[in-house]
């Protein structure tokens, strides 16, 4: 591109900036922001989990898991966020994974099935340890 000079200045253009509330403008953008936001409380909850693991490293003696109503409420909210995030993530598998001759809905179904199996296995292991 030629540099602007005094005899032939480049035409002035107006550069619009995105408004702060752009994500409230339509439902699709709003759901996208919610999806992205869910990662934040999940990260906080996982940091807490690491802290609890460290606290429990000396064995069951003297370890008391947190049981306040506020913590339980926070955990339920985070669980809802985690389920929403997982649902949106796995639903997109049909777009991302491309296997010749396999319908995209089958790919999505297989991801949800794998999620279900993994959840059942982890739940069985945790319940087994708890007994």
């Amino acid at each position, binding site marked *: 591109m030629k540099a602007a000079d005094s005899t032939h200045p480049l035409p002035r253009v*107006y550069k619009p900036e995105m408004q702060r509330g752009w994500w409230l*403008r339509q439902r699709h953008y709003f759901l996208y922001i919610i999806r992205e936001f869910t990662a934040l409380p999940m990260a906080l909850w996982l940091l807490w989990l690491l802290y609890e693991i460290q606290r429990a490293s000396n064995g069951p003696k003297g370890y008391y898991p947190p049981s306040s109503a506020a913590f339980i409420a926070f955990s339920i909210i985070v669980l809802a966020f985690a389920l929403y995030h997982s649902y949106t993530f796995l639903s997109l598998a049909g*777009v991302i994974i491309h296997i010749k001759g396999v319908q995209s809905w089958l790919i999505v179904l297989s991801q949800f099935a794998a999620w279900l199996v993994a959840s059942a296995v982890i739940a069985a292991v945790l319940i087994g340890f708890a007994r």
Partner: protein
Amino acid sequence: MAEKRITVRATRFDPAKDKAPRLQSYDIPFADESMVVLDALNHIKAHVDGSLSYRWSCRMGICGSCGMMVNGVPKLTCNAFLRDYWPRSITVEPLNNFPIVRDLVIDMEDFMHKLKSIKPWIIRKQEYPLGAGEHRQTMDQIDEFRQFSECINCMLCYAACPVYGLNNEFLGPAATALARRYNLDSRDQGIKERLPVLANSEGVWECSFVGECSVVCPKGVDPAKAIQQTKLDTTMRFVLPYGNRED
């Protein structure tokens, strides 16, 4: 019977006079049900205000010139029917996320640069002489990339992409879709020349999958799919043994 009319509000911006764009209202006849937004703009230009500037060409959804924001949604104005909006008014603005040159005309320089950067043509390691014949393809091989070749470079996907709006360095949907089109073409051998552009931090990895690019595409191309599949491809090439081999 009273003549049916519709109000069209169009962005006006004269770089020599105005500091910022403004909306101007025009009350025009809604003469027949087949009228599209582009017809309304043409009516304004021909009968009301000849200084209104906008791009258009084919009037049949092929050239991709007449993309504008219609009531906040990126549309080809030749394919947006007034009957779908009437009796509400219509607000026509330049495509989001691009600098405005004048009225409804945007500066597409950045897009053209990005388009060129992914080398949207067939690259061969060694060209055969024309006499050697054409590069033959099966229907299956064509089907691999056909969808991505439908792009008409209308830039609606860039106007719908908040990631591009927030960071103009992002390669963006249409350029990636076109890169995928050539990378999937059995005649092409240029993937290694495109990877530095596609796989860098302002390439496909900048995309956080809003998905609106695919929603607004007037040709049914799925740029979001092209971007996510390119992410998977580049990862596989990096992770798998011999993944980055010469094809």
